[in-house]
């Protein structure tokens, strides 16, 4: 093995791999796991079929999207074309001028019956930059074999370590956790944000979380809770409802949903501001394609999230592989949505910095 051989080997290896990327790459950022897989099947594959010269690259960086977009903006070099973010991140990106403003009626497809896109999406257009894609909810799943004969029925059972001993997994951020803590500490649903605005209210929420702090495993990626549940590492845990659906219906794990006090949230697309004209046009073209009524309904075949367009709802059918009806697994199904909690975007946009800092300090103590 001489150096010469190594160098020749290296050079040919580089040459080989460099030659492979000839089509136009489009980097689409999303969350990974089952969610990205559903987007691949419902949006990316059909789009690439219709546009053979486009090669979609998946990036699973949505959790760090705001940081990375800010870094790219600073350099004036945006490497992402379309980014899947939750509504609150979209608001933040829009506020900071990091996302492109979209005119729903001219840049998005109307419904098949001619209803304009802005009407079809309705209230879900929470920011000028945000193109809603799904309605999902953050809710709890529990191990049916680890809760004895009395399965948990309300979200407050999460705080009941007497009846349900064992670890629970919660998201490593204040959003949702503080609301649940207050709800289970006797605060009425409609007062939650008023209480949370005060120092005392925040202290009350943290005090409630303190009661289970030693029993919590904190997650930061949506796939962690399903994994922890499957391994039996936790008895119950919060995550996105679609992840639990995959765990229960596809992987047949002994897990059940606790829909109580599920928090509705939106997820959708933004296009980074400052893209070169051709790439921006390509991104807009993709968005137009991927957010029309049929595509949004198609995604529900692969994952149990509700499509964001009103016109897509009747088109939601059966799971692509399992053949089961998807409607009863949607967070918006009346049976599941008996007790839901509305997440206040505006409020969290205002208070996020404050409460993030306090939450992190609380975690570290």
């Amino acid at each position, binding site marked *: 093995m001489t150096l010469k051989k190594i160098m020749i080997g290296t050079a040919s290896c580089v040459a080989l791999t460099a030659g492979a990327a000839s089509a136009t790459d489009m980097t689409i950022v999303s969350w990974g796991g089952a969610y990205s897989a559903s987007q691949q099947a419902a949006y990316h594959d059909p789009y690439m079929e219709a546009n053979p010269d486009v090669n979609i690259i998946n990036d699973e960086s949505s959790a*760090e999207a705001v940081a990375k977009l800010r870094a790219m903006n600073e350099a004036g070099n945006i490497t992402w074309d379309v980014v899947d973010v939750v509504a609150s991140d979209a608001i933040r990106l829009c506020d900071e001028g990091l996302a492109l403003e979209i005119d729903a009626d001219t840049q998005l497809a109307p419904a098949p019956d001619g209803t304009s896109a802005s009407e079809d999406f309705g209230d879900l257009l929470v920011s000028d930059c945000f193109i809603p894609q799904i309605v999902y909810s953050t809710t709890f799943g529990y191990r049916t074999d680890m809760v004895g004969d009395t399965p948990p029925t309300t979200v407050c059972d999460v705080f009941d370590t007497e009846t349900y001993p064992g670890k629970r997994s919660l998201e490593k951020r204040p959003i949702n956790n503080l609301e649940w803590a207050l709800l289970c500490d006797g605060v009425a649903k409609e007062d939650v944000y008023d209480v949370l605005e005060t120092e005392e209210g925040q202290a009350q929420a943290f005090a409630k979380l303190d009661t289970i702090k030693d029993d919590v495993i904190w997650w930061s990626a949506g796939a962690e809770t399903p994994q922890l549940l499957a*391994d039996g590492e936790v008895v119950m845990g919060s995550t996105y409802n679609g992840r639990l659906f995959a765990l229960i219906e596809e992987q047949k794990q002994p897990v059940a949903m606790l829909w109580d006090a599920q928090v509705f949230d939106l997820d959708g697309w933004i296009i980074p501001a400052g893209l070169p004209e051709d790439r921006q046009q390509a991104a807009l073209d993709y968005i137009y394609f991927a957010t029309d009524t049929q595509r949004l309904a198609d995604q529900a075949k692969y994952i149990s999230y509700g499509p964001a367009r009103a016109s897509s709802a009747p088109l939601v059918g059966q799971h692509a592989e399992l053949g089961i009806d998807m409607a009863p697994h949607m967070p918006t199904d009346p049976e599941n949505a008996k007790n839901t909690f509305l997440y206040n975007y505006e409020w969290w946009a*205002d*208070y996020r*910095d404050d409460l993030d800092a*306090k939450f*992190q*300090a609380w975690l*570290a103590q």
Partner: protein
Amino acid sequence: MTSATDDATGPVLAADGTPLKRSLNRALRRQKLRALMLVAPLLLFILITFILPIGDMLFRSVENQIVSETLPRTVVALEDWDETTGELPDEAVFAAFHEDMVIAADQKLHTRLGSRLNYEVSGMSSLFRKTGRRVDRMDTDQPFRDQFIDVDKDWGDVETWSAIKLFSPEYTPGYFLNSVDRTLTPDGIEKRPEDQRIYVSLFWRTMVLSFTITFSCLLLGYPVAFLLSNLPLRSSNLLMILVLLPFWTSLLVRTSAWKVLLQDQGVINNTLVAIGILSDDGRLALINNATGTIIAMTHILLPFMILPLFSVMKTIPPSYVRAAKSLGATDWTAFWRVYFPQTVPGIGAGAILVFILAIGYYITPELVGGTSGIFISNRIAYHISSSLNWGLAAALGSTLLALVLVLYWLYDKIVGIDNVKLG
């Protein structure tokens, strides 16, 4: 050479007729130049790809242009305001502020400024966001002061204005103060509220955990190094493979292995339950806490302790211990009084190396450390990618860097950089 030039008959000449001294000097200069020319490309490369980035981080830890860039007029107008009077700034300041805010809101800069000021005074972020939404609709003919107070009563608070004034300079010690749980106030440096103090204890925890890991490495590494250096070459070479294989195995492979082993339902717990040492409910919590971090990192860093210990022990002549014994020392005395002191340099080298490596670890604590087993590095990563408080991340990084450089300097004093050996 000196004797040659001292020769009374005049300078010795080289073949080409120039004095030998000058010729030698020139040769030396050329040699130096050639050496530098060979080093220069790499030096330049490292400067650009590595040293400048580190410098940029140091710069970010004090950089604070955002206030004066976003609110240029306000910052100038506030210069004349004396906050000690306890009175609000005058209308001119409010007018300047209105003008700045209209532009900032138009260019979408005000929320970022709010986030920046929120690091120092909580509530600023929501204040700026709220104000940005309404500043467009303000009546330019009416006094601005009342209109701002109307948007949020915090604008009628002297503290809000003194905070803006305090953080208007282009460079600030604010981030460094935050990194040690302090904050800059008009009255000087103060401790942060108790529920927001985390960094001093986190630095402390990083040190304690790193020290524990170093100590466990020493405890496990010393006997192994001793055995290896006293075995015949053939068997020690064979056993050395057991040390070198983990050393060469990917960090993530080893971390995955520990994740598999340490979980509640993992191999260790299952085995202990199966053979009846533990009850099913009494499974050990070995992961997602400090225990997990210590176990996994001791394993990962152990070779870095064994290798320097081994190379020092290898040089100790066995005759010393034999001499001690023949003079009547017991096995223990011979070891403790004669052998052990000679291994101290190896202990020093290994311990500092392991400590330096441990203190900056990120991946392993992130994966097995939960919340109680994480290091300062994990906070730095959090501030870069999640909270976006890059200034604080830079300040924490700079503090950690200073700590490591001190240790590095110690290492250099004890071992010498040139003596670093690999494999």
